[in-house]
């Protein structure tokens, strides 16, 4: 099956007047997003995430390289009628909410009665029906973010490109959006999600890419990234936790991590101390730990 979104060796350089002070935002960046997946796109500020999204949406052209969205080159207007987009900073026209959502649907070529029905559906889904007649300019930031999602969903998109979709939402709204995204994936939609909410990405994304200074530093299935094959978690009982570095105790079980090569020595040490091994598993790390490790390593590499 062809990818929904594909970057092919894309480089983007920003330059000052007369080509002075060039900054490389994306450096030979390649990525494929497969149909029906939730793809987490991570990176610290200034990593190039928004630049990549803007190139995909056709807001700017790459300096080198190319790419496709839903089988057409980046920037094709007709293709965008099948895409929903939410920008990092939600900025919308100050009009009554329902009219604004209708306007966005109309720009995407959706016509009545389908448009009327879709508008009603998205407002209900995002719990905006009560404020449908209120002017968007008078809404709170959280509400505005929900309106941003509503305008992105009104055309029933095949691909949803979301840049920080839950940054201003309260926990219940965040859970609701998460459930909405999972429901969309269940019906075969693809979601390209850029976010700093690592715990959320960890919960819902199928694959993750971590970007640092315009280059992908880690790409893979979320479950594979979270499970380390270099480190193992050993759980034992009947031993003193002070005997092992970084050991923690819970319900009488002592848990500690060792590198894979030291597995045998650690197990023999437990036995020699009169303890008993309960289990040995690949160590599971949080996305935050991986993210911090990658950005730290990349930073050190760059300094060297």
């Amino acid at each position, binding site marked *: 099956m062809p990818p929904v979104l594909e970057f092919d060796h894309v480089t983007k350089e920003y330059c000052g007047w007369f080509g002075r002070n060039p900054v490389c935002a994306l450096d030979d960046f390649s990525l494929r997003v497969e149909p029906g997946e939730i793809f987490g796109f991570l990176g610290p500020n200034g990593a190039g995430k928004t630049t990549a999204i803007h190139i995909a*949406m*056709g*807001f700017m052209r790459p300096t080198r390289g190319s790419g496709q969205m839903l089988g057409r080159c980046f920037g094709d*207007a*007709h*293709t*965008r*009628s099948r*895409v929903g*987009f939410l*920008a990092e*900073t939600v*900025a*919308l*026209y*100050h*009009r009554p909410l329902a009219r604004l959502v209708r*306007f*966005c649907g*109309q*720009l*995407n*070529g959706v016509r009545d009665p389908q448009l009327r029905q879709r508008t009603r559906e998205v407002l209900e889904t995002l719990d905006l029906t009560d404020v449908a007649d209120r002017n968007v300019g008078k809404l709170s930031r959280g509400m505005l973010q929900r309106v*941003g999602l509503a*305008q992105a969903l009104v055309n029933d998109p095949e691909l949803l490109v979301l840049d920080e979709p839950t940054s201003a939402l309260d926990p219940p709204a965040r859970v609701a959006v998460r459930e909405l995204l999972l429901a969309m994936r269940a019906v075969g939609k693809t979601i390209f999600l850029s976010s700093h909410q690592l715990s959320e990405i960890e919960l819902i994304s199928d694959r993750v890419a971590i970007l640092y200074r315009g280059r992908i530093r880690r790409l893979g299935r979320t479950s594979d990234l979270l499970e380390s094959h270099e480190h193992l978690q050993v759980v034992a009982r009947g031993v003193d936790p002070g005997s092992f570095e970084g050991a923690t105790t819970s319900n009488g079980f002592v848990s500690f991590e060792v590198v894979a090569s030291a597995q045998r020595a650690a197990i023999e040490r437990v036995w020699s101390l009169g303890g008993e091994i309960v289990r040995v598993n690949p160590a599971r790390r949080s996305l935050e730990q991986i993210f911090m490790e990658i950005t730290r390593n990349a930073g050190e590499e760059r300094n060297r």
Partner: protein
Amino acid sequence: MRTVLLMAANFLHQQRWLTVVLVLYAAGTAAVLGFSEKQVSAEDAAFFLRQQSLYAPLFTLFLAVSAIHNERKSRRILAVLSKAITRQQYLAGLLAGILAVLGAYCLAIGISGVWLVRSSQASLGQLWMLLGMTVVTSVLVSALALFFSTFLPPLFATVATALTVAVPAALEQAAGRGWGKPASGLFAGDAGLRSHAGGPCC
């Protein structure tokens, strides 16, 4: 075409209060002139029309140079360009919106002008000529300003538009009347500007 009209209607909605102010300004100025004296003189009517027909291109100039800049600055442009709309349609929509504001303003000038000219018992022929020139000049100015504002900041776009529109008049001044005639023929805006600069219209 539908997308262009949608964008134009949206622009008009965004600028609705400015449009109302412009219309009220034209009508109000005419009312002040018309009701302040028992008999409106031809000079008063001419003054009103010359003033308004100078303001119309100026208003459209400022509206056009700030249109894209404001959309960029507020980042609303991203919400629009992420939809199934080409850049050409987007620009055409903005231009159509600006022309809709201009249309409302010129309509107000026309109605007020007819009333003043009739009150002064002068001929209406020159009024239509001046109004036509105002519309043509304003359309030209707004199209140029919009074009320049796609790659220049508002101030530079304003200067570039003013210079471009003033080229035929400057040519004529520099090289004599015979030289300027063909350029004036090409640039209707120049004729409009010269009519603002002086000469009785009614």
